[in-house]
């Protein structure tokens, strides 16, 4: 083998110096990234530009099948939704639909969800063309809905529709939603602005320095890129959820157990329920009316159904909750609809709150009637 001549031989690189340079560059890049704090990074999106915005907020537990994924960056979530690209027009009546996975539309195609059905059923309100946005997001937590509402208020809604259920009121569920966990500073800010400091205890006032570095945000950045790539598949196929042909039906037979969280008998302890978040949401909405709905639940016909309505609720707890909601609505002057028993048991899919297409239509018709009836208030 020919040895290189002295002239042609490349300069010898000192390995420790090379390693030190690489390390310094790496640390410096992280520091710059953290100092720059690109909080609006999530707003950089292919959605509504190269690919159409999504009909519902991104959520998916099997991304390769659903072309969708769950991520924590609320900005990125909204940037991927069609709501972020559509300017409010004077001749438009905007309805935001908040809520859990039943509103989001588990096992339903985008055109089969409550928001889509409402858009069909109520094309005109107050002489204006209606646009209905699905802002439901899986997980049961009023605080999660409050965050989404606060973020969505910039889109100038005319009405907020909020189907919810007892489980979303449970205090221990409030901060457990990934949307809250993933946006702790924003969550604390919203809770404080809404006059709710106590539920935000434990949430940081500012992100740690580590969390702002490139390394600290690697997962969020990877999710952001994957969300953009799945946008291509969403545009190409119109699919944003995996639709299994067979799924386990909602449970209808139960043990002889009438406990609800930490309580096993009446009365239902109101202090365990976060009613104040509902009040706060009404305050956050300001002049925009909020129509709160006690959403339909499965009323099971199976074993021990005299004790429990369904997997979530013993009868005593849910009955008391309905009474409390009625009282609170009257006292606080909420617009409130109790539609808990609207849908028959065979129109639920895999949980006690997920509806079939027909169940969704029934709910939409009832709500459409209420929206028409309330007129231009």
């Amino acid at each position, binding site marked *: *083998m020919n040895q290189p001549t002295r002239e042609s031989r*490349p300069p*010898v*690189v*000192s*390995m420790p110096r*090379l390693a030190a340079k690489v390390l310094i560059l790496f640390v410096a890049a992280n520091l710059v990234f953290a100092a720059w704090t690109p909080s609006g990074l999530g707003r950089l999106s292919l959605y509504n530009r190269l690919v159409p915005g999504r009909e519902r907020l991104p959520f998916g537990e099997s*991304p*390769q099948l659903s072309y969708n994924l769950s991520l924590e960056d609320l900005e990125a979530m909204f940037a991927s939704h069609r709501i972020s690209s559509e300017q409010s027009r004077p001749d438009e009546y905007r309805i935001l639909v908040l809520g859990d996975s039943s509103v989001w539309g588990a096992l339903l195609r985008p055109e089969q969800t409550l928001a889509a059905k409402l858009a069909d059923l109520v094309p005109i309100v107050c002489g204006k063309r209606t646009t209905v946005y699905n802002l439901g997001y899986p997980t049961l937590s009023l605080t999660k809905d409050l965050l989404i509402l606060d973020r969505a208020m910039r889109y100038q809604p005319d009405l907020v529709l909020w189907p919810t259920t007892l489980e979303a009121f449970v205090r221990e569920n409030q901060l457990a939603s990934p949307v809250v966990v993933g946006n702790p500073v924003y969550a604390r800010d919203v809770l404080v602005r809404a006059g709710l400091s106590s539920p935000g205890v434990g949430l940081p006032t500012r992100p740690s320095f580590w969390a702002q570095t490139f390394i600290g945000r690697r997962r969020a950045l990877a999710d952001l*890129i*994957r969300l953009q*790539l*799945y946008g*291509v*598949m969403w*545009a*190409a*196929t*119109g*699919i944003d959820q995996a639709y299994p042909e067979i799924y386990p039906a909602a449970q209808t037979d139960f043990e002889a157990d009438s406990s609800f969280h930490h309580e096993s008998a009446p009365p239902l302890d109101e202090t365990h329920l976060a009613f104040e978040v509902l009040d706060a949401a009404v305050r956050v909405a300001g002049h925009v009316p909020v129509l709160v709905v006690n959403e339909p639940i499965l009323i099971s016909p199976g074993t021990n159904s005299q004790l429990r309505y369904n997997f979530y609720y013993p009868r005593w707890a849910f009955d008391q909750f309905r009474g409390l909601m009625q009282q609170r609505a009257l006292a606080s002057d909420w617009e409130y609809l109790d539609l808990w028993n609207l849908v028959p048991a065979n129109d639920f899919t895999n949980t006690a709150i997920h509806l079939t297409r027909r169940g969704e239509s029934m709910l939409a018709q009832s709500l459409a009637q209420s929206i028409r009836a309330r007129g231009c208030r």
Partner: protein
Amino acid sequence: MALGQILVGAALAFLWILIFPHRKRLYFLLTSSVIAVFWFQPGLPIRGLDFWLPFATLAITVATWALTAPAEVRLTRANGVTAAFVVALVLLLGATRYLPAEPLLTAGRPPPLTWLALALAAAGLLAFVAKRGRNPALAMSLTLAALVATLVVLKNPTLAMWADLGLRRLTGQPVTHASIADLQWLGFSYIAFRLMHTIRDRQAGRLPPVDLGEFVTYVVFFPSLVAGPIDRLERFIQDVRGPLPPAQDAVRNGGWRMAIGLFKKFAVADGLALIALNATSAQQVRGAVWAWVLLYAYALRIYFDFSGYTDIAIGLGQWLGVRLPENFDAPYLQPNLTQFWNRWHMTLTQWFRTYVFNPLTRRLRSGARPMPIAATILVTQVVTMLLIGMWHGVTWNFALWGAWHGLGLFAHNRWSDYMRRHDAAPGQSHALHGLRQALGVLLTFNYVALGWVFFALPSPAQSLGFMLKLVGAAG
């Protein structure tokens, strides 16, 4: 190769060149490669198969060496020591069965040592028969045939399923769970082609004499075990026997190459994989524009994936003092299909050129009534490309992919020939030349991309359906 395995391999190579770059180099390469054969093998549901397949890789390799090595090389003491060393390594890996922890270097729990000892004895007998046989030419031909037959079985879904059912019956496992994925033999396509190259070169009297350690290291060299490139033995041993390049140069150049490869594979290709065409998305896609997007994503993904792996292999090889051959050279920027195939999976095409295309061309053009040139080109191009297609899988779709490229190469050859004779303006301007080149690149890329439809989808019917979508003729 998973990212973790690549990083561990790189770390080991790095430590080795730092600590003792010039000592016992071949033994380091041999040891790491033999272990990698077992370590890289994915787990398989058929009991013990994920140990026996790597074992078979080594057994076939040693037997092929015994068959092809000249007697004066075979009988040296060094080769005896190497053989004993490989056997000891395999026994040590087998002995991990008795450790309380989960196996680290094998996909599953190795078989009992008594079975392993019996298998080693059988492999030794095979090597003995190979070297002592009265008719080595026949033995070599039979070995070639056996390698081809094994490839066909592994690559054909029906045959692979039959083989799987047979193995399941043999091991008393339920046949209802049989799947062609059960017979994933890591790197066998590449291993078989390296072995076939050595046998054919031995038959032609071109094979240089090599030691057992060099031969085994060449066949199962761990950086190129999974995805090539397919090196040539005579070139490989030059590097193994030659001096090492300066450590700093190797670290810098190899490290840079590996970094590029890791980025190509794990950032670009794995990202594109989310949107690349597959059997499911081919049915789901709505509209011709998005169908083209998925197809282009597939074309780019397969390039970045494969060339990324090649960069990693080449970079790791540089750290170990082995300059593995290049496999890709901007293939999608070539102005015609012939140049594309000169720059795509170059070591595979070179292999087929050497052992299929050139001999077939000589055969057809010689004799009393040689075949006309055009017909010869058609036959040789199509046959070669059909075989390259079926190297990927013995199915109708891979055959169609091969035929697509064979016919494309023939068409380009005829077109080039026509243009050479009829091009009225050989001294055309730079601008016109540039335009023709650009159009050529565009046309070639799209022709190749359309060919990937057959490669990505499992059946001709689905491929045709997707082609119709591409032209907006299907929903």
